[in-house]
Structures are given as structure tokens and as C-alpha cells.
């Protein structure tokens, strides 16, 4: 299978700062790619460039063969923002059903994604009364609606308990096994261990773009964290 996303020499200039500086990478179909980097490294900007919410200053971002932000991509893309983008004053089910209508799905699909994120028991609860982790899952459920080929998740597991994190990672892997492509950002290196491919970002530049095995072999390390540190030190010396 080919590349679902390919970015070539992307530069994003925001006022005086350069959020992305000559970033090139590609996302392999049917794989879970971790977008890993410290806070402020440009992860969210990169994600927004892929979903078409961010204008790139120069370079190209191609998604499923179309330029990022193309109209036809809107039904093929699942996007979860860092902060849960859902309606606090609606119940879980009302939220999901509204977004389901937009994505062209029925009530059964809405119930299915609620179940996938393990919120069936809270379906009738108003989102504002849920915990942070539960809200994050409502937001995630929205992205699972429809037949999105590409799922882009900005820090989806932050602040969740270990059991739930494991549950969600299993879900991500299952989705990838179904042929979906996932890009999952995180600033927690532990999460990187769960990914097949890794895209390491620092100060708006790509530090590494390879499979996890390749990264570990190349840096002669055992963990992604150690590999990251080695690359940063290598870059500075």
C-alpha cells in the first residue's frame, strides 16, 4: 500500500516564529504512526496542516492524492483536536448523533462508536458533567464516525488511566488492522512504544521518520526516549 499523506518541504510561518521548518514525511497506509515531540515542537501545527485547517507558507501536503483541505477529504478524515471539541451542554449521545448526521451515518453507527470508546453507560449524561478523560473519549468517538480512511488524533490519551489507555491503543491497532491509517501525537515517549512508525519532531524540524525498529537500530538504543535524546544530542554536537 502507498502513502496516505505526504508532505514535502512544508514551512509554516506564524507571525515571527517558524512553526514548521522544511518538514517532509509520509504516512504509510494501514499503520499507526506516532508523532512524537516535546510541547511546542510543532505537532499540532503539523496536524492542522494535514487536516487543512492551517495554511502552509510553502511546500505541499498531499492527503489521499488530493491537496490538504480539499473538499472531498472532509468525509474521509477523522480529526481529534487536543482539547475536546464537543458540546458541553449536550449529552454524549446527542453530541455523537449530531456529528453522525453530518458524516452521513445513522443512529446505529452513533451507538457503535460510543461503545468503542466505552461510554455506553454515560450515553445519556451531559458532557459537561463528565471527567476530562471521558470528554476526550467523546471527542475521539466523533472521529471514529463514518468511513474515515485517515484518523488524526492530537494527544488522544493524555490524562487517561493506564487501563483505559491500553484499551484505546488496542482500538487504534484494530482500526489500523482494518486498513485505516492513524497519526497519533503525543509528548509522552511511552506512547511511542505502541506505534509501528515514528515521526520525531523538535523545534519545527523532523528529527527522524522511520519505523520504530529502524529508529532503535540506527541510534543503538532500547527505548524511544533514549533514541530521542541521542538524536537531540547528536544534532547539537
Amino acid at each position, binding site marked *: 500500500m502507498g502513502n496516505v499523506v505526504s508532505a514535502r518541504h512544508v514551512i509554516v510561518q506564524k507571525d515571527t516564529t517558524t512553526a514548521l521548518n522544511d518538514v517532509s514525511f509520509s504516512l504509510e497506509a494501514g499503520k499507526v504512526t506516532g508523532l512524537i515531540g516535546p510541547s511546542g515542537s510543532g505537532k499540532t501545527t503539523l496536524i*492542522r496542516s494535514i*487536516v*487543512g*485547517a*492551517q*495554511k502552509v507558507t510553502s511546500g505541499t501536503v498531499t492527503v489521499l492524492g488530493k491537496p490538504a*483541505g480539499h473538499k472531498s477529504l*472532509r*468525509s474521509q*478524515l477523522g*480529526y481529534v*483536536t487536543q*482539547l*475536546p*471539541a*464537543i*458540546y*458541553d*451542554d*449536550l449529552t454524549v449521545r*446527542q453530541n455523537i448523533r*449530531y*456529528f453522525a*448526521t*453530518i*458524516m*452521513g451515518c445513522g443512529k446505529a453507527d452513533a451507538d457503535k462508536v460510543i461503545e468503542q470508546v466505552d461510554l455506553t453507560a454515560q450515553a445519556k449524561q*451531559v458532557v459537561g458533567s463528565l471527567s476530562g478523560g471521558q470528554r476526550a473519549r467523546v471527542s475521539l468517538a*466523533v472521529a471514529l464516525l463514518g468511513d474515515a480512511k485517515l484518523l488524526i488524533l492530537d494527544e488522544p490519551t493524555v490524562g487517561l488511566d493506564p487501563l483505559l489507555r491500553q484499551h484505546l491503543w488496542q482500538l487504534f491497532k484494530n482500526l489500523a488492522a482494518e486498513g485505516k491509517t492513524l497519526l497519533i501525537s503525543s509528548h509522552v515517549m511511552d506512547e511511542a512504544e505502541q506505534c509501528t512508525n515514528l515521526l520525531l519532531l523538535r523545534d519545527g524540524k523532523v528529527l527522524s521518520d522511520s519505523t520504530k525498529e529502524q529508529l532503535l537500530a540506527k541510534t543503538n538504543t532500547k527505548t524511544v526516549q533514549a533514541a530521542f535524546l541521542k538524536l537531540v544530542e547528536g544534532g547539537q554536537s
Partner: protein
Amino acid sequence: MSSRLTTATAGRVMKQLLHDPRTLGLLFVVPPVLLGLLAWLYSDTTGIFNRIGAALLGIFPFVVMFLVTSIATLRERSSGTLERLLTMPIGKLDILLGYALAFGVIAIVQASITSFLAVHVYDLRIAGPEWFLLVIALTDALLGTALGLFLSAFARTEFQAVQFMPAFVLPQFLLCGLLVPLAQMPRVLHDIAQVLPLTYAVDAMQRVTTEATISSDNYKDITIVAAFVVAAIVLGAATLRRQAK
């Protein structure tokens, strides 16, 4: 644009309001109470309530809907839901018309309560048909909704959005012809008043109280206000950007 998505959005906005009964209560209770207060205030002075009561029947729904819509759309922007919607297969007009439809329904209820009480309890005497009073009140409420949708695009914070009320609504109130009839205004202000939508809304209301039949002037007033509604919604759609710079 799709009617299915517009109604889905309207339904969603309605459900949000239903989860907030206090806001709904305020929407339906405040305008009639204010109008009642006014009727009481002028109960010993003949003629005045009839003149300004009708105008205020047009102004209250405008002001209330302007505020509610500004805040609602600002919240949609700041919560990230708007950005999410814009990455989805839904048209910008579906979102805006959905809001207009939902608040339009609220406006119908609000205007019905207020105008019913005005005519049957507060004894506002109108020469024209009562249903036309309702049509004007509804158009005015939609004007508030549309301007709120459009102007909220220029507010970054709730503080700014609330300040848009005195900045954009009060000048229209001062110049609408209620305090000083248009003909007696200084030339420049008279000209300014003639390009402000509330002037026509108030003129339409005052005509219903004095004219027994609906004149062409009255239709002209309504058409002008409706044109402002459409323009504000179209401009509002233009302010929704799928892409940030």
C-alpha cells in the same frame, strides 16, 4: 448546502438551549416583563405607551437575540467545535442557517408571548392586524440573530462580544426614530439613520399601531430588514474560514 444538515444543526442548537432552562426562561420572561413595566410607567400618561411600546416590541427581540447569538457563536468558535465542523462535510451556510432557524423558532415564541401580552394585557392599541405585529417582531429578532452571527466573528473574547451590544446596538437604538423622529434629526444623523436596519424595524412597528391596513411602505420596511438579515448571514458565512493563516 443541505436542508438535512441545516435542520440537524438547528435541532442541535435547540437541544443545547433545552439543557439550559434558565436561559430559555430569561428569553421568554424578560421582554414581556420589561414591556409591562413600561406600560405601568406610562399608565397615567395617555398616548405615550402606544407610541414607544410598539417600537420597543420590535427592539427587545432584536437586542436579546443579538446578545444570545453572539455568545452562542463565540462559544462555538472558542470550544473548537466550529473548527471541527469546518473539517467535516457540512456547508458554512448550513451552520449559520441552522443557528438562524433555531433562534428563529425561539424568536417566534418570544414575540408571540410579548405581543399577545402587549395587546391583550398592557392594552397596546394597534390599528393594523395583530399577526403583522408578530411578523415584524419575528423579522426584528432574526435581524438580531443575523447581526449577532456576523459580528461575533470579530470578537475574540466574551468581553468583546458583550461590548458589541453598546457598540452596535445602542447607536441604532438612539437613531431609530424613537427618541427623535427622523424628520427632526440633524441632516447627517438623519442620513446615517436611513442606512441602519433598526430604523426600518421601528418604522414598521409604528405603522402597525397607526395604520389600519398594511401599506406598501410597511412591506418596504420589512423587505429592507429582511435584506439586512440575508446580507448579514452571507457575510457571516464569509467570516467562517476553513483555514487559518
